């Protein structure tokens, strides 16, 4: 999307002015970067000793890769369970029966309004009292991710079903399909397909949220990076930059996938 209609195409004088402005802005940005560089440099965050740990294979095998595995494990479990939760509750909210529709709506709205961290704390610190077992940090994180993101995905799928032309359901009923079949064979597949980009965006949110596991001591990427690597090599800034880069890489590829799907489908 271009926004070139917001301004005139610059003439010779405008070109000159823009060049000067661009130069000034570049200088300001460079000055800002320099200040940050110098301040971190004073703490020796750029010294080779703080970066070379990333070249050592054991740093990868003890911290980064296990951390990434932890993050991905929580995220994949979360995606699968949240997808199921979303499917079930979207269907329930679209039910013809009030006694199914309303409780489902209450559940979805509740979990959408409660911060994820509270859900994780509830599962992690409350499980012993409530069910007599101490759940692992992994279970607590996946519990939170499932209920929070599941309710968001339920809303996305419901919106997808509601956005379909009425004729789809009518035609399906007309050829003699039962209510469940209409939903399962006709509406949900189309809704899922139409809403795929939104669902994938929600998976990006889920992946980022899995970093909350660090607060209950789950060994995911941010925890391994900042509490593992940085504690051993006191290189908090390099570690944070590397971890952020890994997350950004994964999320941008997911973003691109969502973008491509939104283009090719339909």
């Amino acid at each position, binding site marked *: 999307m271009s926004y070139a209609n917001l301004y005139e195409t610059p003439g010779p004088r405008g070109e000159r002015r823009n060049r000067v402005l661009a130069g000034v802005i570049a200088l300001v940005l460079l000055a800002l970067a320099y200040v940050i560089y110098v301040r971190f440099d004073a703490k020796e965050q750029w010294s080779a000793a703080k970066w070379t740990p990333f070249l050592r294979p054991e740093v990868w095998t003890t911290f980064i890769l296990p951390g990434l595995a932890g993050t991905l494990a929580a995220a994949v479990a979360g995606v699968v369970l949240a997808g199921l939760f979303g499917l079930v509750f979207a269907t329930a909210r679209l039910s013809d029966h009030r006694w199914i529709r309303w409780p489902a709506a209450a559940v979805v709205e509740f979990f959408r309004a409660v911060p994820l961290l509270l859900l994780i704390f509830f599962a992690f610190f409350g499980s012993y009292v409530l069910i007599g077992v101490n759940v692992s940090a992994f279970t607590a994180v996946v519990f939170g991710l499932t209920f929070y993101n599941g309710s968001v995905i339920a809303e996305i799928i419901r919106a997808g079903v509601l956005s379909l032309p009425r004729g789809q359901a009518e035609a399906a009923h007309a050829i003699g399909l039962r209510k469940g079949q209409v939903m399962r064979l006709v509406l949900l597949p189309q809704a899922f397909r139409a809403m795929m980009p939104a669902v994938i965006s929600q998976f990006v949110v889920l992946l980022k949220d899995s*970093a909350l596991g660090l607060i209950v001591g789950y060994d995911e990427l941010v925890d391994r990076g900042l509490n593992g690597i940085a504690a051993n090599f006191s290189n*908090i800034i390099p570690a944070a930059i590397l971890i952020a880069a890994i997350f950004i890489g994964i999320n941008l590829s997911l973003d691109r996938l969502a973008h491509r799907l939104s283009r090719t489908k339909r």
Partner: protein
Amino acid sequence: MDALLLEWDTVVAAFWMTVRLAAVSALGSLVLGTLLTAMRVAPLATLRRTATVYVAVARNTPLTLVLLFTGLGVGANLGVELSSDIATNNFWLACIGLTAYTAAFVCEALRSGINTVPVGQAEAARSLGLGFLQTLRLITLPQAFRAVVAPLGSILIALTKNTTIALVVGVSEASVRMREMIETYGDQVMQIFLGFAAGFVLLCLPMGLLFGWLSRRLAVAR
């Protein structure tokens, strides 16, 4: 319900902190987000690229990492001290982190708002002789804002819930208090959780209704 009633003052104080964090960060991210939007549509490629990179980085980094970075990197390592009082200092650091993160989402929403403004609006503005900043300030942005009231509301609600993560910078808001109370009053886990959850529902539900009403009221008739 005993625990919640016994510790009523603590609970109220915790939610007051949540509200303050959300209010300050909302204001900050609205300003920074608008600035970023202006940069992304500016005639200068340097500005456009800077804003694009900023948004991509802030949007795709976990908030936990952003806040840890503000706390440990900006606070402890850069030595930025916003107040001599540790609690106040942590509060402002948390606001910086939340603002830096949320502004990227505000920018994305506003940019999609600009997309809804018909091309003719900016063209008419230019033919009146308005420059880029005037077009943006007087014609495009006001209409863009009115188009994205509802998404901005969702961002504000998400921000309110995200303030719970400020605990990694050492701010005592709702999530910290809930954890402490569960540890102290182990037998009342369910009541404590439902109490804190109700607090967030009470904060977020009116916001959702308000923004829904505002978005209908402010929508530009076309």
